[in-house]
């Protein structure tokens, strides 16, 4: 297993958001975590990327290395885990290109970077058109693409995606997921968090269901799609 | 009852912090020297009885309200018999109000602004006034150089320079007719760049520049003036009278004149003794303010002794001290002989000091009322 989480506990102040969840992700697979608002999906991702601290006793390993030993920026630069956060968080006062360049801040491999940038532009031709535009003036969809592209540039061992479909028009949503599949084909493991459970389950190979802070279900996505509770709770059938 | 033994407390209200800490330091040192003397004499003898003397030194942060607080505290809390200070009129004027209200003698050694003592029977000072100093400088320049066109550069935001500048302008124009002050330029406290004002002054064709500024601004003004092509003499006032002026200004200031309360170089007798002792203990020539504070304290001491005896009833004693002080006739201090007018201002000579080429303040002339 590439990523290995044991007994992950997180609280915001005195609000406990995660109650000792455990799961693991195999290299190259697409895993999804679905759940209601406030269930703890984003929190899980934030914990892995070390954006928020987790309580003692939590174990997080990536390729056998202890994630807890790394700070948020090192998780990206040393472990190659990139996080596309909830609500895009692109740098509005930088141009599209600058956003992508910054993503490679810690990378030394010049020509590889060039290759990646090219690849991203091929994937999202829209971005290439708007190369020199300030990211802040892009529309919702374009910003989402930039966020994903940026994530890919900053590290491709594994990508943590938090609701990439949020606020996207159906058509764009499809493009986006095709793109993600592309990225996965290149060998990047993907951990996807989605509100839109059906979409997520159709896209991923394996899924977890999280309910207010603990994992309640686990299995191949087709099983989950047929699971009556899931149907009832998340597919609005 | 409550048989507490009477201690004579003298309050010192000085700017230990704030804009002119050097002034505060000078006052403090002088006071400590004075106390030393008293203690060596085993206390202050009043009416055949020796009393322990204590200094209450309060910092007024060279802020007006802080000076008021300090006075109130020293008078109502520490029961001081008399207060020496504050130095700058900025603080002395409001602080005097308090002292007078509580009927406690206050001697400001260095405040030259008339309103400090005006209508305040309990407030005295140890130096001459601006209305006197202004004309003195004006006369001196006229007689010394025979100039008729003068320029003035002063700090509008600071009480003393502003006041003195006005007086000087008045005096000068009385002598040489209206408009004979060809440039009357100002800046605000903490400014360091006077180039535009000086450019104006240079252009105005003035022959002499009068600038009643503090020791920390003088060097800047002088050097900038030179760099902008000013060649005439620059004359200052008693606020120049600090060792620092020359330390900071260096060669640029050699040969300049200012009016002052005493001249260190070539002093004789008691004055010399004081200067040497001060220099020995604190390592530099005492400023005006030190000398004046010393005199003020000696005045207070004299008054207390003249009061005859201390009752221990602080109000009574304060009144007695006040009366005694008002009575003192040509008290001979190291900054000259003093006798108080009924306003509480000493009738005193001003000294014109020349900064000689060793950078010493040498006596150049004096003018008496």
């Amino acid at each position, binding site marked *: 297993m590439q990523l290995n989480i044991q007994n992950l506990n997180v609280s915001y102040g005195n*609000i406990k958001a995660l109650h000792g969840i455990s799961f693991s992700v195999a290299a190259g697979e697409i895993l999804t975590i*679905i*759940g*209601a*608002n*406030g269930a703890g999906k984003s929190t899980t991702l934030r914990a892995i990327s070390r954006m928020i601290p987790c309580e003692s006793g939590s174990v997080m390993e990536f390729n056998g290395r202890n994630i807890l030993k790394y700070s948020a920026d090192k998780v990206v630069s040393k472990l190659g885990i990139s996080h596309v956060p909830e*609500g895009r968080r692109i740098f509005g006062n930088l141009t599209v290109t600058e956003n992508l360049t910054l993503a490679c801040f810690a990378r030394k491999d010049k020509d590889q970077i060039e290759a990646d940038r090219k690849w991203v532009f091929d994937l999202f031709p829209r971005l290439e058109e708007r190369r020199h535009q300030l990211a802040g003036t*892009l*529309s*919702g*969809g*374009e910003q989402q693409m930039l966020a994903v592209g940026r994530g890919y540039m900053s590290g491709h061992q594994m990508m943590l995606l938090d*609701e990439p479909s*949020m*606020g*996207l*028009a*159906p*058509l*764009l*949503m*499809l493009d986006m997921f095709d793109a993600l599949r592309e990225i996965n084909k290149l060998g990047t493991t993907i951990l996807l968090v989605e*509100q*839109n*459970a*059906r*979409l997520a389950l*159709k896209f991923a190979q394996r899924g977890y269901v999280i309910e207010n802070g603990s994992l309640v279900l686990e299995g191949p996505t087709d099983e989950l799609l047929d699971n009556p509770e899931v149907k*009832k*709770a*998340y*597919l*609005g059938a | 009852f409550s048989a507490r033994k009477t201690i004579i407390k003298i309050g010192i209200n000085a700017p230990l912090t704030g804009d002119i800490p050097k002034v505060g330091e000078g006052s403090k040192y002088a006071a400590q020297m004075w106390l030393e003397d008293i203690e060596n004499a085993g206390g202050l003898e009043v009416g055949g009885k020796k009393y322990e003397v204590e200094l209450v030194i309060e910092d007024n942060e060279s802020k007006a309200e802080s000076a008021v607080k300090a006075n109130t505290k020293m008078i109502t809390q520490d029961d001081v018999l008399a207060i020496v200070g504050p130095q700058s009129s900025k603080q002395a004027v409001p602080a005097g109000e308090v002292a007078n209200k509580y009927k406690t003698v206050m001697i400001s050694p260095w405040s030259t602004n008339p309103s400090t003592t005006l209508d305040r029977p309990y407030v005295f000072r140890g130096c001459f006034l601006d209305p006197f100093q202004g004309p003195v400088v004006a006369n001196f320049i006229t007689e010394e150089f025979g100039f008729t066109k003068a320029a003035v550069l002063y700090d509008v935001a600071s009480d003393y320079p502003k006041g003195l500048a006005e007086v000087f302008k008045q005096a000068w124009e009385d002598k040489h007719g209206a408009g004979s002050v060809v440039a009357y330029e100002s800046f605000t406290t903490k400014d360091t760049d006077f180039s535009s004002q000086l450019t104006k002054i240079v252009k105005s064709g003035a022959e002499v520049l009068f600038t009643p500024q503090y020791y920390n601004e003088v060097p800047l003004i002088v050097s900038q003036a030179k760099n902008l092509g000013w060649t005439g003499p620059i004359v200052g006032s008693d606020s120049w009278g600090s060792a620092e002026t020359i330390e900071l200004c260096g060669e640029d200031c050699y040969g300049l004149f200012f009016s002052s309360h005493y001249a260190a170089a070539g002093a004789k007798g008691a004055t010399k003794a004081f200067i040497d002792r001060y220099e020995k203990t604190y390592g530099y020539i005492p400023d005006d303010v030190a000398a004046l504070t010393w005199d003020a304290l000696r005045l207070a001491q004299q008054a207390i002794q003249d009061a005859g005896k201390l009752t221990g009833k602080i109000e009574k004693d304060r009144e007695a001290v006040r009366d005694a002080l008002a009575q003192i006739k040509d008290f001979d201090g190291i900054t000259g002989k003093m006798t108080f007018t009924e306003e509480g201002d000493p009738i005193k000579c001003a000294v014109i000091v020349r900064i000689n080429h060793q950078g010493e303040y040498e006596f150049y002339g004096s003018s008496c009322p």
Partner: protein
Amino acid sequence: MTALLHVENMTHFFGGLRAVHNYNLNIAPRQIFGLIGPNGAGKTTIFNLITGVYTPTEGKIRLENKNIKGLETNQIAAMGLGRTFQNLALWRHMNVVDHIRMAHYAQLDYGLLGAFFNSRACRDQENRVRENAHRLMQLFDIEKYADDLVTSLPYGAQRRVEMARAMATKPKVLFLDEPTAGMTPDELVKMIRIIRQVHQDFNVAIFLIEHRMKFVMELCETIQTLVFGEVIAQGPPEEIQNNPQVIEAYLGKEDMT
């Protein structure tokens, strides 16, 4: 004409960019009206134009036959346009009940002096507002959060606070910008129920932007499709759903929601 809200040939430019072009709209009383379109089509901009955040470069806007173009946002709101925001615009340091109270601002008439000296009028009106606020919080079931800071609420609850707040302004037309963004299907069902209820209890007209087809189709009587600032189709749900242009530009073949 019976239109409650009437927009005619509205056009707006951002600098060079033409965000909205010749836009027309007629909303009848108690109608539920949907606005869909790709990202960046100009939907939110249209909301901002009608509610007075921006003033359109050209066009007429009338509410109950009164011109509202060029008025200040707060005046327009007071005249009966309530709205929610695409990305939540709640007041970070205020608790839920105060949010609802604030929305009654225009309904108060005790003056500043009243407020300073806590006059009787002030006390009475404030009390009435409090009661009303609690009624609204019950309806949107956020009463349990009444005294919590909004930032500590789950996302879904925050959206409901926004709606409750909008309702407190006594709107005639309620504007909802992606009310279900980031909600799970079951929450979505709940939201539909709430909107229906609001629609009945307060008999307001509703004008909403959505990307969730299920939601739009189920709720709206008429739907407009906007592409690059221009309406390419308008009509009842089923018609829109099968409109080739709309599918081409927006829906795509398979339905993912």
